[in-house]
């Protein structure tokens, strides 16, 4: 028996023994997932037990090195762990932006000391991170960002504003892109810096969206002093000063990878099969077909595209693991997933008819169909718009020339 087959048997047994029944209720949603962080309170005893057992095994961040709290699994092993976890419908023990975005960037660009501090805290669920990228004047043209970061000898002084900082109001640290050189070409004066949200001068204001409630915030920096370093070899800046764009790009690939692997048509709360759901709501005609031929065709097309999309995630992941890497193809997944997610919510609204457009006395209820439908308009905008993904695909996958 191969090592991987042995590993699968071990993992299966470990999951059976350690994952509490209550944590085997399907994939996580933003509401029931374990985020971690200073303010975190477990929602149930089972959630806490599951987190602690996974942590002891290194399974909160399975592929990270053991010295930083991971289990040091290879890509093949991690895939097996994921498959076995999904086979029993178990939630992930911990998930947040530290794991999916900052972690991979630190693994690529951080010093040992930076990794030891930050990766370990992420793995242990102690620190929750948010992302400070976009600004009011820097959306799709992210590299034009203007948040000013001045060298004051023993510290950096930061002034400016970030926007779309998801969960900034409940996060502990922020990884931030700031401008350290206003004279250099725009990509060459950006620095990637790690800041404690408890620093004096940081204030946060939630943003109300068309969907009502949202995790997004504006984050303001008013003479915020950031230490040059958090210890020996442990600078607050990741990579080199003025070379933060390299780190940012690497991280965006991971962000797109993450956004591109959510099960899109169902979103997080949709029915297992859109078509069956529609049949229950609308009924069938005499030939056994949905009694709305145009809607039927739209649903079938969406389900077909969703099927092909999920297979593509599988295939590109297998290709990446076999050595050719995912690279800029993550932009394809990001684009496809966000457009499909929007279509899923649109179709659900169509199926519901006017019922779907009815809201409560207190406005749009969080988690309602209308809330999901409106909130997901942002999917093809955040993390780089569909059009920005198209630009990236044309240049970096297809090699088409610049103007």
């Amino acid at each position, binding site marked *: 028996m191969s090592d991987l087959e042995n590993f699968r048997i071990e993992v299966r047994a470990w999951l059976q023994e350690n994952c509490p029944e209550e944590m085997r209720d399907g994939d996580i949603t933003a509401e029931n997932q374990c985020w971690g962080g200073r303010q975190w309170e477990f929602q149930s005893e089972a959630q806490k037990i599951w987190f602690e057992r996974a942590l002891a095994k290194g399974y909160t961040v399975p592929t990270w090195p053991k010295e930083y709290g991971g289990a040091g699994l290879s890509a093949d092993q991690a895939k097996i762990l994921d498959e076995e976890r999904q086979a029993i419908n178990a939630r992930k023990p911990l998930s947040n932006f530290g794991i999916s975005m900052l972690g991979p960037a630190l693994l690529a660009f951080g010093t040992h000391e930076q990794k030891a501090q930050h990766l370990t805290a992420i793995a242990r669920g102690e620190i929750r991170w948010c992302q400070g990228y976009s600004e009011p004047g820097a959306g799709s043209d992210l590299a034009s960002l203007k948040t000013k970061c001045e060298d004051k000898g023993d510290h950096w002084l930061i002034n400016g504003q970030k926007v779309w900082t998801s969960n900034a109001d409940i996060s502990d640290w922020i990884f931030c892109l700031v401008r350290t050189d206003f004279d250099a070409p725009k990509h060459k004066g950006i620095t990637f810096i790690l800041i404690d949200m408890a620093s004096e001068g940081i204030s946060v204001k939630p943003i109300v969206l068309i969907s009502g409630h949202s995790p997004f915030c504006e984050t303001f920096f008013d003479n915020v002093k950031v230490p040059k370093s958090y210890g020996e070899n442990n600078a607050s800046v990741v990579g080199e000063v003025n070379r933060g764009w390299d780190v940012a790009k690497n991280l965006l690939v991971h962000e797109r990878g993450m956004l591109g692997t959510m099960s899109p048509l169902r979103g997080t709360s949709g029915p297992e099969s859109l078509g069956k759901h529609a049949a229950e709501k609308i009924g069938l005609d005499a030939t056994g077909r949905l009694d709305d031929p145009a809607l039927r065709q739209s649903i079938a097309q969406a389900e*077909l595209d969703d099927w*092909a999309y999920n297979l593509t995630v599988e295939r590109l992941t297998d*290709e990446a693991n076999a050595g050719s890497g995912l690279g800029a193809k993550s932009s394809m997944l990001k684009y496809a997933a966000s457009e499909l997610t929007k279509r899923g919510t649109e179709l659900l609204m169509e199926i519901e008819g006017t019922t779907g457009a009815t809201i409560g006395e207190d406005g749009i209820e969080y988690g309602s169909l209308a809330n999901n439908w409106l909130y997901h308009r942002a999917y093809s905008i955040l993390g780089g718009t569909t059009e920005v993904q198209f630009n990236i695909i044309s240049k970096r996958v297809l090699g*088409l020339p610049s103007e």
Partner: protein
Amino acid sequence: MPLILNEEQEMLQDAANGFLAEKAPVAAFRKVRDNKPADGFCRELWSEMAEMGWAGIIVGEEHGGSGFGYVGAGVLAEQMGRNLTASPFFSTSVLGATAIQQYGTEKQKAENLAAISSGETLYALAVDEGPRHNPGRIAFSAIPSGNGFTLSGTKTFVADGHVADKLIIAARTSGEQDDPHGITLFLVDADAPEITREHTPMVDSRNAANLSVDGLEVTGDDILGELDGGFGALEGILSAGRAVLSAEMSGSAQQVFDVTTDYLKEREQFGQKIGSFQGLQHRAAQLATEIEMMKSAVLKSLKDLDQDFANAGMTCSLAKAKTGQVAQLATKEAIQMHGGIGVTDEYDVGLYFKRVHVAQQMFGDAGFHSDRWAKKSGY
């Protein structure tokens, strides 16, 4: 099982790519199209393919095949789609071989599979009776007479029908026209005097024929699979055909897209490479993404056939639907992005447009298969 080719399959792909680029590039297809040989393909080329084990690609080694399964067949079909190769591969090595290997008796296997693998005997599947694919609608009659049956009726768009040595005919042995029960498959010699075969020239120069059968006497030994229960077998054969046709379309789509992106990088207008225009870049990016989706769908359907043939039908339908749509988009965009040169006969992209159109019609277009999916899903 990872959704990628294994090492052996990659080697087959490289070999096919090398062989076809040398022996059967698009220029060879043009020769067949323009010179109109009676067979509609080059027999020497087919012999060489058979020698390399392609004719028996899905046939087990005990019958002289190379045992590569459907992923192997798809790998070859994809390269043939890239080169527009004219050959009886699809009708003989995919449809014929599947029919006999999956549903034949031991005797039928012994008599036919080696002949398929060696390339010496050609097969064709006769299903449809009208211009739109509808395998459940069979009026072609098989009336009991003596120890056997008398076959009469007509069939349309039989791929390689006029060059085949053996025909697999879906006929009605009982029930009404649209009843799935009561269909029986018969394996008969194609040169019987009761069979009239009329070559129907197609827009993509694909080999096809209409058949007319008038009182052909056959015996129970000529039945392939079960009496009255032929619909299941037909579905199985069609599923294999759909997956491999999808692989062929995928090859055509990828080739035409490669040619188009090259053109976008070379062609200058308004003093710039046209590939620098965002209007074209975004369409190319969207198409590139769709092509990735298509490739996954095709590989999944081929792998499903190899792993669990009896339950692969719906995956093959989904693959055919997705591939048909993407390949049509790719060939249409190729012509449009090439501009004037794209509609000239001298330039190859139009040939792909025609080839994909016919492949998309064959064995059900995207509408046919999404309807099938929706019905299966209960809506």
